[in-house]
């Protein structure tokens, strides 16, 4: 059933009893044209675009837990395209544009709120980088403006911009089209739309191995719910990409780290933008429920534990208390960590793997949520045509052999 104000009204007259589950829970078939491993945002978006753009509907999405239960449910929901290099800017800007039309496209309100994102400058060097970043973004066709300390003070009154502040504010960069979206809604919206086009979403189905033909190409997967055959398999499993690669017999330039995030108790509205301090790596926004959503840097040793360590937690929260003094006594409601796959140049790996028939959408590191629509678009294009999507060409795995790295670690002004 289409979601609309009229249908909500009509169902209201019938005590809301007519709604159906938003997607089916089918048993796996014996074979599919395409299998997508990973029922997060990227995997479900891939399935959706395979069905919608290429008419390939014999598609299974295999998820070891429940959809959206991994990093899709563990991120801080920020969406932006303030990257430095042309290849990244084009790709993330494409994603942002898809987000701008996503609620309508999926007939599902993903609550995309373009509240802007401000990156602060705390020193003259930061200020130079802000100007450099603004120019780079504008040259790449992405909106960017610089802000004075007074403008930042007006926009974010809880931020300490006094000259005596521990982190004095000398200026900032704003991307006004950046913002946040409801992460569960993005996952559920893609799931519902893919299901409606005939995609099988199979939950509680863990992939335990790959089947290979005599030529080495994949012919299917072994799962906790039996064997499923397919000659085209996409892998979109975020922090666990190395484990899938190990099952298929190759290695990736990936190290898995834990990235922590925090949500405070609900507060009255105090912050109407996303704000990032590169000096402390801390960024923050306020959810519609009133909770402050806070993120920081990585826990800097390899980890598959979906929980964070104390030193990073105290750094992040100490920085919040120093920069936003009025929040010093706010209590946390929840705290968690997701496992992110980090590569030396902090850019994703999209496209062919060393195993024929097996394709990758991984290494998004700390920034996969904002890339869900474009990640799905690129992996679907690769699976359908066996050629890389034009936006994905610079992000192939062989850049670690050719040396054509896209080093966004510093360029995007984010902490990795």
């Amino acid at each position, binding site marked *: 059933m289409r979601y609309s104000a009229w249908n909500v009204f009509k169902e209201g007259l019938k005590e809301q009893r007519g709604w159906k589950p938003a997607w089916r829970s089918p048993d796996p078939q014996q074979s599919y044209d395409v299998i997508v491993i990973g029922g997060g945002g990227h995997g479900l978006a891939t399935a959706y675009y395979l069905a919608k753009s290429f008419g390939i509907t014999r598609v299974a999405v295999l998820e070891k837990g429940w959809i959206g239960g991994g990093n899709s449910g563990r991120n801080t929901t920020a969406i932006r395209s303030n990257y430095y290099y042309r290849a990244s800017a084009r790709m993330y800007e494409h994603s942002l544009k898809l987000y701008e039309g996503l609620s309508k496209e999926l007939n599902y309100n993903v609550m995309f709120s373009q509240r802007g994102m401000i990156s602060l400058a705390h020193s003259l060097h930061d200020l130079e980088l802000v100007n450099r970043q603004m120019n780079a973004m504008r040259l790449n066709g992405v909106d960017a403006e610089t802000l004075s300390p007074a403008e930042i003070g007006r926009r974010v009154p809880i931020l300490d911009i006094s000259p005596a502040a521990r982190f004095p504010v000398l200026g900032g960069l704003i991307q006004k089209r950046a913002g946040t979206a409801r992460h569960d809604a993005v996952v559920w919206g893609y799931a519902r739309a893919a299901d409606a086009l005939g995609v099988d979403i199979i939950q509680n189905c863990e992939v335990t191995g790959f089947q290979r033909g005599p030529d080495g190409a994949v012919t299917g997967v072994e799962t906790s719910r039996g064997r499923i055959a397919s000659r085209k398999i996409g892998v979109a499993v975020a922090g666990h990409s190395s484990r899938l690669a190990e099952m298929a017999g190759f290695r990736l330039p990936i190290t898995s780290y834990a990235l922590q995030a925090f949500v405070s108790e609900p507060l009255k509205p105090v912050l109407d933008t996303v704000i990032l301090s590169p000096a402390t790596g801390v960024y923050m926004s306020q959810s519609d429920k009133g909770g402050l959503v806070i993120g920081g840097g990585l826990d800097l040793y390899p980890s598959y*534990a979906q929980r964070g*360590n104390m030193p990073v937690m105290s750094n992040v929260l100490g920085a919040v208390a120093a920069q936003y003094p009025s929040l010093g006594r706010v209590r946390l409601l929840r705290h968690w960590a997701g496992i992110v796959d980090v590569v030396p140049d902090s850019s994703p790996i999209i496209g062919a793997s060393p195993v024929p028939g097996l394709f990758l959408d991984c290494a998004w590191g700390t920034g996969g949520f904002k890339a869900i629509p474009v990640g799905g678009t690129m992996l679907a294009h690769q699976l359908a045509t066996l050629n890389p999507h034009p936006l994905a060409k610079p992000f192939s795995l062989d850049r670690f052999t050719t040396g054509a790295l896209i080093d966004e670690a510093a360029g995007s002004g984010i902490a990795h």
Partner: protein
Amino acid sequence: MLQISCPWCGPRDELEFRCGGQSHIIRPDPPEAIDDVSWGKYLSEKINPRGEHLERWQHNAGCRRWFNVARDTVTHRIRATYHMTEAAPAFSADGVAP
């Protein structure tokens, strides 16, 4: 908070240390005879296991020396710390270093 036992300084909080990633990586030799694929693998490929990981750490707020740690990436339990040039200690029957 992890407690890491520096082979020179003894047990200290993890705050004093910095992780340098996978250990026991052997540089292919001689460099001029190595093709691009092998060199790229040497520079970037990681084992990245879910379980025990042999890694290099530096006691950067202490003696500043490097050493090896055998650590589980899920539980973060440290089985052993050992010198840079040593091989990883074998598991004993109870799963701890001899």
